[in-house]
């Protein structure tokens, strides 16, 4: 074999080996292995992340826009609430107080629109409800006990409208009930009345002998008894919610019979006016105002009284309707029975005036031996009891046994508190009420 031939074979071999090695290494380097990402893919992923990120940003903007839109819609969405009253809004009593509250919540919420109908009789209430429903009202408040059945009928007839009835006990899936109760205040008034009376005769001008009024008279009498067991309560019925002339005659009759303190449950400031007149003529009469602030009617006679804040209840109901807590299916057990703790009622003869300054010294000077607080002035006692009944856990209730009726029968056993039903159906007087309950109505 020639030497040139073998050399060229060797050269070929070397070149082949070198090329093979280069290819092999390169192939090995570039062959995809499990768990490893090729460099080219990295870039691709990076660009994908970037794309997603910008997409997210765009979506975020979209969400913000939608949220703003929702908010706008919410702000634009109104609740239309209608109020149906039994009396004139200027009675300076029951209906007046409801209408004051309506105006407060109406001014408070942009999303609330209200309307009212006054002097609606029981026979007419269904027609007024029909009208308000046709006009697109979402919520209808009916504010008289006598409106209960027509409201229930309407709740069944209009399942998409929310109804709230004041002072009744019938409810439906779209009809709740509410009431601001005064008996705690009457009890506190009673403490003061018992301390102030000189004749131990305390008068009460009352509208009708119904459980609500009887409960108030009893609470008042229980307060009197706590500070002055010798004083008795005398009651005159006028058989009208609103008749100033009758209220005047009943108040004068009580004064004529020797009463020097007067409280009342009816819808006019007449009793306070009578007290002021007698006081100005030289015969001090102490009075307690009812429902509306009446200090200005009798600066020399009004000691304290009961004030209502219906707006506290209306606010709670309307906000819960607006936020969807209440709807047309879940009102069957919604019953507001709000008192001092919830702030629905206030002690006083004017807002912010729990006791007329004129009588503060007289009440501070009257010191009694109290089974719970020891020696204490009636003034301090009033505020101690007020605090006890205003706390989140009400630690005191005026209707705590033993409580006896006029015949001496135990009605509420010792240590027991009267429950809602007992209070709601009360048809007996406590033992320091001197006047018997009328039998067989008027």
């Amino acid at each position: 074999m020639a030497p040139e031939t073998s050399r060229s074979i060797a050269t070929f071999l070397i070149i082949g080996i070198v090329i093979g090695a280069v290819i092999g290494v390169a192939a090995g380097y570039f062959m995809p292995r499990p768990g490893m990402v090729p460099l080219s893919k990295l870039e691709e992923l990076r660009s994908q992340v970037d794309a997603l990120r910008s997409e997210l940003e765009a979506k975020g903007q979209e969400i913000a826009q939608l949220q703003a839109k929702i908010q706008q819609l919410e702000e634009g969405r109104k609740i239309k609430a209608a109020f149906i009253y039994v009396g004139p809004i200027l009675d300076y009593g029951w209906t007046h107080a409801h209408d004051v509250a309506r105006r407060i919540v109406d001014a408070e919420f942009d999303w609330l629109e209200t309307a009212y109908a006054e002097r609606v009789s029981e026979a007419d209430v269904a027609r007024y409800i029909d009208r308000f429903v046709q006009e697109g009202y979402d919520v209808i408040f009916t504010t008289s006990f006598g409106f209960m059945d027509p409201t229930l009928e309407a709740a069944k007839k209009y399942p998409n409208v929310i109804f709230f009835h004041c002072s009744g006990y019938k409810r439906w899936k779209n009809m709740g009930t509410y009431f601001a109760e005064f008996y705690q205040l009457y009890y506190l008034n009673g403490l003061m009345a018992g301390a102030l009376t000189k004749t131990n005769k305390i008068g009460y001008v009352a509208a009708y002998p119904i459980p609500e009024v009887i409960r108030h008279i009893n609470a008042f009498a229980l307060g009197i008894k706590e500070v002055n067991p010798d004083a008795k309560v005398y009651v005159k019925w006028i058989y009208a919610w609103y008749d100033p002339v009758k209220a005047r005659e009943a108040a004068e009759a009580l004064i004529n019979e020797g009463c020097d303190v007067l409280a009342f449950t009816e819808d006019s400031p007449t009793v306070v006016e009578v007290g002021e007149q007698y006081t100005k003529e030289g015969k001090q009469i102490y009075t307690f105002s009812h429902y509306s602030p009446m200090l200005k009617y009798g600066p020399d006679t009004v000691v304290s009284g009961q004030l209502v804040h219906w707006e506290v209840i209306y606010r709670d109901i309307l906000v819960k309707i607006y936020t969807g807590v209440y709807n047309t299916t879940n009102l069957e057990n919604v019953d507001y029975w709000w008192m001092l703790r919830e702030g629905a009622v206030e002690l006083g003869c004017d807002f912010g005036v729990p006791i007329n300054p004129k009588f503060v010294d007289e009440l501070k000077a009257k010191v009694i031996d109290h089974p719970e607080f020891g020696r204490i002035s009636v003034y301090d006692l009033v505020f101690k009891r007020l605090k006890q009944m205003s706390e989140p856990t009400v630690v005191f209730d005026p209707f705590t046994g033993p409580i006896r009726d006029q015949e001496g029968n135990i009605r509420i056993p010792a240590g027991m508190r009267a429950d809602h039903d007992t209070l709601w159906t009360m048809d007996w007087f406590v033992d320091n009420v001197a006047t018997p309950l009328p039998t067989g109505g008027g």
Partner: protein
Amino acid sequence: MELWLAVGRSVIKASTPLLLGTLGGIYIERSGVLNLGAEGLMIVGAVTGFVVAVNTGNPALGVLAAALASMMLALVYGVFVVTLRANQVVSGLALTMFGLGISSLMGKEYVGIPAPHLPPVPIPILSRAPIVGRLLFSHDPLVYTSLILTILLWFILYKTRVGMAVRAVGEAPAAADAMGVNVYRVRYACLALGGALIGVAGAYLSLSYIPAWTEGLTAGRGWVVVALTVFSMWDPLRALLGAYLYGGVEVLQYHLQPYGVPPALLSTLPYLATIAVLCVISREAVRKRIGAPAALGKPYTREV
């Protein structure tokens, strides 16, 4: 004793607006015009008196304004029933409804504010007399006015030519006209006087008796006046009796309540008495004797 004295005082106060109103009603009806608008006239008087007393601070001006306002309203009623000869029942009821509505409108800003009261004015010397002094002579001026007016209006109606003319117009307007009495003028004059008196009765309620303004303040006292006008058989002295009887029942019912006397029954007494009177005077003979105005409710048309 003390109790009965106090009750007596209450009776006098309760009866005064009824007496004033009934005296007005008697003069209107004596001239032959039916007075079913009393409730409207009374409440307009009540609200006007209150508004004026609050704005001027003078309750006496309030009483005066009340008299004028109700007088104007009664004259408007007169235009319809005397001049235009409209049905007096319908017009009277319309007057009542109008009065209730306009009073609510006028009083809108005045609910819940106190007004200057009409103060009691004890009559010197007399008010210091035992018993009677406190019972009769220490009231506000309207109480005395009502008593003086009772006698005065009785005297005018029965003892003077003016009273004769009024009675003649209510009894036989055509005959009175023939005698030269101007029927229309007498009727307008009686409406003006009667309207003013009923207006003062309203002012007594809002400025002395209650005293405050709230809607529907009179609460039907105008209708009591309508009933008492008939009950008194259109005689001012019997109006005194009727008004004090009714006021007495109103006051006494609260003193009798503890003894189980149903107040609803007592409240119906004046109306039952009125129906009894209506039954009695429906007999022509009785009617003639007590002098019920024969032309009551009949518009007068002058025959040419």
